[in-house]
């Protein structure tokens, strides 16, 4: 489903990615690993469609409406509540039975009690859990996750891993991580950068 060939990305003179190839079949789970600055985030942003590669071709095989992207930043408004943020994305993604889906995700990621509080009052871990809810809101076919464990405590990480275990096989996943040992049992392939 995901096919990236000869991906190269330059920012000015700096080459961030050089000739990266990646193929992930439908239902596959690819782990992207590598040290800081190896281009993991750039590759994931290219896969999500946020960045255009300088060279190479990248196809996802699905419409952008069916892609869920979790980046370093949570992509939510600080001055809105969790429900308001998810409701906005739900409208833009045309999520059917939006309110039920939002309620279910907030409960699953233990944010139901704080659902009507402004995101600016959340801890970093709560914001990350909300970002995961945003990523899963439209039930995407392809998930592109950049350091999904970032800022999560033990309970949050366990919730995430349980969710990923459910999604593995049913959805196509590409996950960049510094802790590959946490997800190795789910992975069907691995790409080491740098």
């Amino acid at each position: 489903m995901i096919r990236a060939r000869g991906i190269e990305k330059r920012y000015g003179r700096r080459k961030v990615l050089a000739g990266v190839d990646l193929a992930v079949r439908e239902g596959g789970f690819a782990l992207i690993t590598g040290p800081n600055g190896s281009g993991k985030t750039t590759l994931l942003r290219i896969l999500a469609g946020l960045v255009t590669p300088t060279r190479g071709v990248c196809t996802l095989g699905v419409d952008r409406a069916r892609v869920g992207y979790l980046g370093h930043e949570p992509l939510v408004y600080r001055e809105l509540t969790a429900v308001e943020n998810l409701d906005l994305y739900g409208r833009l993604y045309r999520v059917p039975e939006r309110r039920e889906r939002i309620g279910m995700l907030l409960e699953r990621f233990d944010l139901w009690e704080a659902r009507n509080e402004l995101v600016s009052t959340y801890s970093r871990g709560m914001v990350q859990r909300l970002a995961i809810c945003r990523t899963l809101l439209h039930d995407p076919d392809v998930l592109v996750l950049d350091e999904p464990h970032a800022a999560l405590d033990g309970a949050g990480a366990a919730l995430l891993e349980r969710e990923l275990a459910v999604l593995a096989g049913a959805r196509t996943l590409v996950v960049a991580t510094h802790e590959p040992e946490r997800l190795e049992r789910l992975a069907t392939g691995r790409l080491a950068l740098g």
Partner: protein
Amino acid sequence: MTYLADVSALTRKDLKVELRARDTLPAMLLFVLSTLVVFHFALPADSSKAAAYGLLWIAIVFTALLGLSRAWVPEQEHCVLDGLVLAPCDRSAIWLGKTLATLAFLLAAQAVALPAFALFFTSLDPTALAGVLLADIGICAVGSLMAAVAAAGRSREVLLPLLLLPLTIPLVVGGVGSAISPDGERFLLFLALYDGVFAVLSWASFEYVVTE
């Protein structure tokens, strides 16, 4: 209908964020009022109507600039613009939502500023008021696009005036002309034409501004 629903959701979100953060509108109100007060004392008592209208337009343009410089700040925090760009809605809806929200802030500032202008200087006739409204639409339409361009760079505060002020010159000419010319309707027509052309250009080019 889906497009309008997206625009409506994005505009309401901007209004809600501003009502809570109160970052933009109070600054715009304070700026436009203090500018008019300063001009009131700076301008000689026997100054012409044309001079007063000129000062009003300076106040309007810089008040709009103040609002526009903060227009994309909520999207820059937590990189929300990436999330909006990834959504399957038409990307021009993001621009239109921002334009309408900025227009609402500018109109709110003018709801206070225009009576103050009438109190300190002279009242505005219906043609001059129509000129202000049409110019507001033009400033917000092209300003939202330029603010997005500036926000993508590192020096937003410097870049926005450099990009926007040259584009507002026709609006100031049209606005002042509609207020002082005996043939004010012609200037209104000019402003409407400017609004139409630049709104379409901004609407069509926004996608290229927010995608690499």
